């Protein structure tokens, strides 16, 4: 198994520590998309702080601004206004330095179907300035971590959905990132594959990597996240620990027992269970 806890001294060439600070810090983050006739305000002023070592969940209905926020934090989208710092580095000011410190696994497992799993990981290592030998060794470690050794030399197009997600996760870890961004990491997976991904996320976090994940599965957020934020209409509408958010709702509503995270979500977004159908899903662990 990969020893992620002892990797700080083995970070890739070009890596320079950014000093101690919050893993993710966003202030008044805004993203507008310009259309021909109108401007779409996808994110309208998000303030966020994720402390180093946390698993932070970012929830919201479809179109709420989750993925847009994550894409700004991972340098994939330009920032209309506001500031964001990831691993202590200004995202807009030095995007390459941010890219050296983060791992990204997006909603669609971003893989090249014509390569083998091993080739993909070695290539990713080479892109992060590892030598050929280092990249090969790192690929071997990661294939073991996500239990894909047997499929390592098969083309990715033959992988199942769960295997692709695990490989995507492994490719995001090649350079031992400080902060790992996961965009809906378990969407479309069967329950067994989902549990495997949860285990991987816990293990990665336990070894010191901060995890920022978006999800539509409230059970997932409840199981995995130390803290979470709910975004709706481009604004953060709730933020706190799962237990704290439930307890706050219980006190405010004078409920006899603790509400579920679903209730918190529905309360925060002003949705009813009927209206939320299709927006958010529950899954059993």
């Amino acid at each position, binding site marked *: 198994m990969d020893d992620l806890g002892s990797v700080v001294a083995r970070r890739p060439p070009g890596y320079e520590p950014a000093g101690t600070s919050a893993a993710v810090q966003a202030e008044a983050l805004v993203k507008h998309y310009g259309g021909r006739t109108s401007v779409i305000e996808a994110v309208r002023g998000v303030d966020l702080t994720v402390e180093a070592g946390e698993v932070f969940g970012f929830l919201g209905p479809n179109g709420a601004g989750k993925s847009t926020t994550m894409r700004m934090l*991972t*340098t994939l989208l330009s920032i209309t206004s506001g500031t964001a710092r990831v691993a202590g580095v200004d995202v807009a000011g030095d995007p390459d330095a941010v*890219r050296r410190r*983060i791992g990204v696994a*997006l*909603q669609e497992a*971003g893989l*090249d179907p*014509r390569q083998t799993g091993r080739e993909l990981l070695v290539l990713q290592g080479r892109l*992060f300035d590892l030598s050929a030998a280092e990249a090969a060794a790192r690929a071997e470690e990661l294939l073991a971590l996500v239990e894909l050794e047997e499929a390592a030399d098969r083309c990715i197009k033959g992988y199942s959905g769960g295997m692709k997600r695990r490989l995507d996760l492994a490719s995001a870890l090649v350079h031992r990132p400080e902060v790992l961004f996961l965009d809906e990491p378990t969407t479309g997976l069967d329950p067994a594959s989902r549990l495997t991904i949860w285990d991987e996320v816990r293990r990665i976090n336990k070894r010191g990597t901060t995890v920022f994940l978006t999800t539509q599965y409230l059970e997932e957020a409840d199981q995995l996240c130390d803290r979470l934020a709910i975004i709706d209409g481009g604004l953060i509408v709730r933020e706190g620990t799962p237990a704290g958010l439930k307890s706050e709702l219980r006190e405010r509503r004078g409920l006899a027992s603790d509400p579920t995270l679903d209730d918190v979500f529905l309360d925060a977004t002003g949705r009813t269970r009927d209206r939320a159908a299709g927006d958010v899903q529950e899954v059993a662990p």
Partner: protein
Amino acid sequence: MRQTWVLGQRALREAARTPEALLPTLFIPLFFLVVNVGQAGKIFPAAHTSFLHGQGYGAFQLPSSLLLAGSFGTAALFLVEDIEGGYFDKLRASPVPRTAIVLGRLIAESVKGLVIATGLVVLALVFGISIASGPAGFVILIALTALWSVVFVGFMQLIALKTRSAAATQSAGLVFFPLLFLTPNFVPRHMLTRPMEIAATLNPVTYVMEAVRSLILQDFVWTSILRGFGVVAVLGAVMIALNVRLIQRYD
């Protein structure tokens, strides 16, 4: 440079694992060569046609087929697949110079261009066409064809990055056909009607075609050769600059 080469190797693996995308780039230009020679070969007999310099009409037509082979731009379609599948974002989220993302594919395209052009010319040699400028001329004409394929795929990558659509990118590739037919494709430039001559003179493909043709039919006509290389150098630089600009502003 290392990252460029690593991405180039990946694009070459991708091409090698998709032979079905490569075969038409060999077959269709050969088809056009056979059809064009079959239709016009008798009008231009080698013995009485001075612009053929003693060779058959196939030698005159070979440059069109070479340039057609270099104008399929399959790399741009693979780029759209990368965009649609999310791998392009994976690359953008890595600390890879944007130029490496563009140049990696273009380097691979030049290698593919070299292989395909070599295959076509070797086939032409088998069927009696000779390269008047000899082995050195052979190398130069293959290199020029490969550089043209880089220019054209650079253009198609622009469409791919702008539209992110396979259909739009594929349609843009068809722009080569008007460019090909507005050249001295069937006869030398001075034999074209005046409007066609003007159009051919304005068309950059004409100069690449004339350079390749001079190497096949004549010895080293340096003015022609340098003009051909000049066109691919200028267009290549423009395409790379526009590709890098688009990828840097990609949102």
